[in-house]
């Protein structure tokens, strides 16, 4: 299957979404006519989500539930749409100068926080200073690493913020967008304890929060987009596991889920699924500096042993896009289209193993419970070509515990499975995962040519320049296979089509209920 260009895929995805919607509507003759009319005010949406593992704190949050909850209450300079276009939100427009080493953002007029304080450049600067301060312990620090340092944010005037970068970075707007999920804009005097001081510029405000059971949100009367949100409020309920929340949705106790697993939910009865292509994936990382994967041929053998369409079917219900062992998802504009898609080839596997002098390949695969199914699929598929995989399951706490410099399993085991949430730009994968100095380089892959190409990519000022560098990087990854990537996950979102409309899937599970209305 040829790798679709982003436009083609979008059309396809849009078409798919439309088809899904039509299919969901068309079969049922009792579809309410109000589904087509103008949106009306009113209604309370009941949403389910897994219990946040930790207190909800925008600066340090990392789990989907906390992120979605915060996104209903606070907002970003720029929003990331489900096809990764940048949508102006608190920033009206932005320009890069000095070869994209300096960026100026003009803020939207007339925006106030839910307590009446006007939004100004001071609050924006404070929000980013907070993220850049090592004492806040934000994961955003890693996103800004090498690009923006403390002191790089300045107020030009009450409605303009200027960022001075450490190096040219043409995709900088993505780093201050929702793509950097901690970068919500909060008041300048925000001092922590978000659930008690939930003041933001988002469409809803927090009425109550209980770490065990859920949250209640109501319409923010001071929201900058007049007439919106249409909903009176959102009731969020926490669920200890996904099976319980699926059942709640099916039995009508919930209207939608923040996070939906494609293979578990079916569009039956009142449930509809909105589908969209994504850039999330699960990487099979192989350590290139120790046996058995220190030989390129052995790594390639594993790559050729996988039946990628079957993986897609098994773990993503067929809605994903095939991966080609490089980090440029088909959805990315710079994704190269010339590299032939790798497919299962048992003869090639034998040939490669023989060339490497490995008569019988056996290795341990380390992972944590969410990736158990994928691990089982890989084990079964590799068994068919005579490769033995021993499953090494750890608890999530153990898998991600330890030191990133020395012993944490997810970065140091021979072969492991790690899931990555969708990123808006490929450099957010390539930089940490496969550059010589990458912070999350579990394969220990070092390729100076690739490092140079990435720097050039980030500095490139136009699409053509980026595509050229992307091709070099992708070809290197495809050949050397430090990471086996068989699938780019598609995303779905389930909702009750009889009661609500306007609920869209998002590849990073982001939530935007501004345009949701009751039927």
């Amino acid at each position, binding site marked *: 299957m040829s790798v679709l260009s982003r436009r083609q895929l979008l059309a396809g995805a849009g078409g798919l979404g439309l088809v899904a919607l039509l299919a969901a509507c068309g079969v049922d003759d009792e579809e309410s006519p109000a589904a087509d009319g103008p949106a009306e005010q009113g209604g309370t949406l009941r949403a389910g989500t897994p219990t946040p593992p930790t207190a909800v704190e925008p600066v340090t949050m990392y789990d989907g539930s906390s992120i979605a909850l915060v996104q209903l209450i606070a907002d970003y300079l720029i929003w990331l749409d489900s096809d990764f276009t940048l949508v102006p939100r608190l920033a009206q427009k932005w320009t890069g100068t000095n070869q994209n080493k300096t960026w100026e953002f003009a803020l939207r007029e007339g925006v106030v926080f839910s307590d009446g304080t006007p939004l100004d450049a001071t609050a924006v600067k404070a929000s980013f200073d907070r993220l850049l301060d090592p*004492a806040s*312990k934000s994961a955003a620090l*890693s996103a800004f690493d090498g690009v923006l340092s403390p002191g790089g944010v300045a107020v030009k005037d009450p409605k303009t913020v200027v960022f001075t970068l450490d190096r040219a970075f043409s995709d900088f707007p993505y780093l201050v967008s929702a793509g950097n999920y901690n970068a919500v804009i909060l008041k300048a005097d925000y001092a922590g304890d978000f659930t008690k001081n939930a003041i933001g510029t988002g469409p809803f405000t927090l009425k109550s929060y209980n770490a065990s059971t859920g949250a209640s949100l109501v319409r923010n009367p001071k929201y900058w987009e007049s007439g919106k949100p249409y909903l009176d409020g959102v009731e969020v309920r926490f669920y200890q596991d996904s099976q319980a929340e699926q059942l709640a949705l099916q039995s009508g106790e919930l209207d939608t889920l923040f996070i939906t697993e494609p293979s578990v939910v079916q569009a039956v009865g009142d449930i509809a699924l909105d589908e969209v292509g994504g850039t999330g994936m699960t990487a099979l990382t192989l350590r290139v500096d120790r046996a058995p994967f220190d030989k390129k041929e052995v790594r390639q053998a594993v790559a050729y042993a996988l039946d990628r369409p079957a993986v897609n079917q098994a773990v993503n219900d067929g809605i994903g896009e095939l991966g080609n062992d490089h980090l440029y998802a088909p959805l990315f504009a710079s994704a190269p289209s010339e590299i032939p898609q790798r497919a299962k080839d048992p003869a090639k596997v034998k040939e490669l193993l023989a060339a490497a002098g490995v008569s019988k390949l056996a290795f341990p695969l380390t992972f944590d419970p969410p990736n158990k199914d994928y691990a089982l699929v890989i084990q079964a598929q590799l068994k068919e070509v005579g490769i033995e995989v021993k499953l090494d399951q750890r608890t999530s706490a153990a898998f991600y515990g330890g030191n990133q410099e020395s012993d944490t399993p997810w970065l140091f085991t021979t072969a492991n499975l790690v899931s990555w949430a969708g990123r808006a730009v490929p450099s957010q994968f390539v930089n940490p995962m496969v550059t010589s100095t990458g912070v999350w380089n579990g394969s220990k892959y070092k390729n100076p040519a690739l490092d140079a190409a990435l720097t050039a990519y980030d500095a490139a000022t136009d699409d053509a320049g980026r595509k050229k560098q992307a091709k070099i990087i992708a070809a290197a990854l495809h050949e050397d296979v430090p990471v086996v990537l068989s699938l780019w996950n598609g995303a779905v979102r389930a909702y009750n089509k009889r009661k609500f409309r306007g609920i869209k899937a998002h590849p990073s599970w982001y939530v935007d209920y501004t345009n949701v209305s009751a039927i």
Partner: protein
Amino acid sequence: MRHLLLRRLAAIPLTLLAISALVFLATEVLPGDVARQILGREASDATAAQLRDELGLDRPLPVRYADWLVSFFSGDWGTSYTLKVPVRELVFERLGASMLLAVFAFVLLVPVALLIGVLAGLYHDRPVDRILSVTGLALGATPEFVTGVVLMVVFAVSLRWFPVSAQADPGASLVNRLEHLVLPAVSLVLLCLGYVARHVRASTVASVRSPYVRAAELRGASRFSIVTRHVLRNSTVPATSALGVQAQFLLGGLVSVELLFNYPGIGALLLTAALDKDLPTLQAAALVLGFCYLLITLAVDVVYRLLDPRLRLGVAV
């Protein structure tokens, strides 16, 4: 008996102390890092180390234990590392939820078990008895997550008679909350039913054969009055001890039901706290549960002795 009571009461704090030490040691040994649970895997080592330092996690074990012990007994149970809420509030909220479910299940269990046991006993060895006994046995053997799953699919998803999750909306009335708890309570009741009913049945059979019941029958007393006056009264002793055993189980064995029905009870809290290495919460939950368990055990023993005059008087049985 007062001696027994006092001795057992005095032993409780010692037992709890031992538990707290064991929990501390166990958490030490468990792999994983609570700082990472709070910050996520993508936070840097330095950041995680900083948080560990702030939480005081790098101090030597005896220091941390002593520190915790002192605060705990002076009433300061600390703050949950992961959820950042005061532990005492959290634990009691969850305990209350679990107790509500346990008490509800217990309240449903008693009359049903008595009814079934008496029926089986009165008609002993006849088809009714056989069916009830075997059914009770089968249900008692089936793990509660199995019956729970079947109940859920039939009554919540298909028939929609009851909600799927056991958790009511905040501020809901008691009736509404109990409505949400029907399915999990029923799955617990089904589990315990057979055991208790069997005891009731046995004593029913014994009473039915006893001299005074025969005498009453000969006098022409009605079945109903016989049952209520003699049979039930004699069933209370074995029923109590059987119920007591179940009470202990109900409080401690709720984890799988809580997970299945998404009920935020103390069992689920214990599990999450252990997996996350959230020590303050784990300690408090383990100790509170331990305390309840020891109290219930003691209470059952006392009641048993009170009801059985032979034991109360110390006569060898």
